[in-house]
């Protein structure tokens, strides 16, 4: 059982991330315990600079933007993917309409 936390204050991207993680886990048949962390004070204890963030078994693996299905599958499969700052390369904004 993988413990997965999605960090985000409830923006569109955060909800999309939760949905996608659930979906990929279901497709792969991997049991997960998914938790949403929505309080900004709690989110900040993980030291991320952009939301949504993803924490797998206590380790921050992603921040900023909705992660791709491939990356989620990677976390669920081996769970040993290195913490990549390259994670934030797809961090364009999906929240209510700026820009």
């Amino acid at each position, binding site marked *: 059982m993988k413990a997965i936390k999605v960090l985000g*204050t409830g923006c569109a991207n955060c909800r999309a991330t939760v949905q996608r993680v659930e979906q990929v886990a279901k497709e792969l048949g991997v049991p997960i315990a998914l938790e949403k962390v929505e309080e*900004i004070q709690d989110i*900040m204890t993980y030291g991320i*600079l952009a939301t949504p963030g993803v924490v797998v078994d206590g380790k921050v693996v992603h921040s900023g933007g909705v992660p791709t299905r491939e990356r989620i599958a990677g976390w669920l499969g081996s769970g040993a993917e290195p913490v990549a*700052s*390259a994670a934030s*390369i797809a*961090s*364009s904004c999906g929240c209510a*309409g700026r820009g």
Partner: protein
Amino acid sequence: MSAAMALPRQWPKLFLVVAAGVWFAAYQLLLPLSEALTNLLPVERDTRLGGALQFFLYDIPKVLLLLAAVVFVMGMVNSYFTPERTRALLAGRAEGLGNVLAASLGIVTPFCSCSAVPLFIGFVQAGVPLGITFSFLISAPMVNEVALALLLGLFGWKIAGLYLVLGLAVAILSGWVIGRLHMEAYLEDWVRNMPPARATVGTDTVTLAERVQAGFAAVREIVGRVWPYIVAGIAVGAAIHGYVPEDFMAGLMGKDVWWSVPVAVLIGVPMYSNAAGIIPIVEALLAKGAALGTVLAFMMSVIALSLPEMIILRKVLKIPLIATFVAVVATGILLVGYVFNAVL
């Protein structure tokens, strides 16, 4: 995998060259195509409806093409400037030059208004001075790729350039003023009590092919989200072009109306629209006699200051600091409006 899919992954450089060529060819074809299309329609080109239709048929593909190109390039550029790297560049900077650097990085660092709070705290925690953090937070949403692409498409490069320079100036000066006011006491207590963090940059090995993919992702996400606003904005703009008499706006938003700039800013602050919807309408107003300074001030206040953003920031800032932030930025925008109306 088909050849067209394989190209950007396997030969990203070749793909970029080919894509640029195709893009320029398409861009050159727009005007003749839109004229031809309008001629096919059963309306006279010289009538109001004909004029509005041609404007609509030319501007929509033009703006969408420009937007796709600018967003793609910015998506690639963004992949070089992660928030972590920007924070490391700004930590411990002296004010002045630090404000300039922060405002400039605000353009190229990926930013989302829902990430404003974590970013703000992360910056302050790592020792980025408050004024420099604000320079970044003001420039990041205001000088964004969608606004620049639309200005480029609808107004031309001169006004797009002016917006870029003035947006940076407002961000640099406002941040500097806020820094001088030493308002650290008006951060929420829990923010001030956070343990300091070290600004570290993870090692990243992003390949060019991955940056190209990041560009695609940005286009899918941003263009996919804003195109309905652009089409709606251009439709309203086209209607104004075709039906509102020349100089109609001169009496309301013209140069000689001194109060038009503050009113434009006051109306703009609580409005929460994106650049995509507002710029095409503003372009049409300009054509009908509104003054450029007034129009720029309106646009900047709509994009840079918004009620939802204040509510988000309230979680980390006490009210006096938010009020100062709004007042300083609004004053900067006001100055931009007046200077423009006076000079042009």
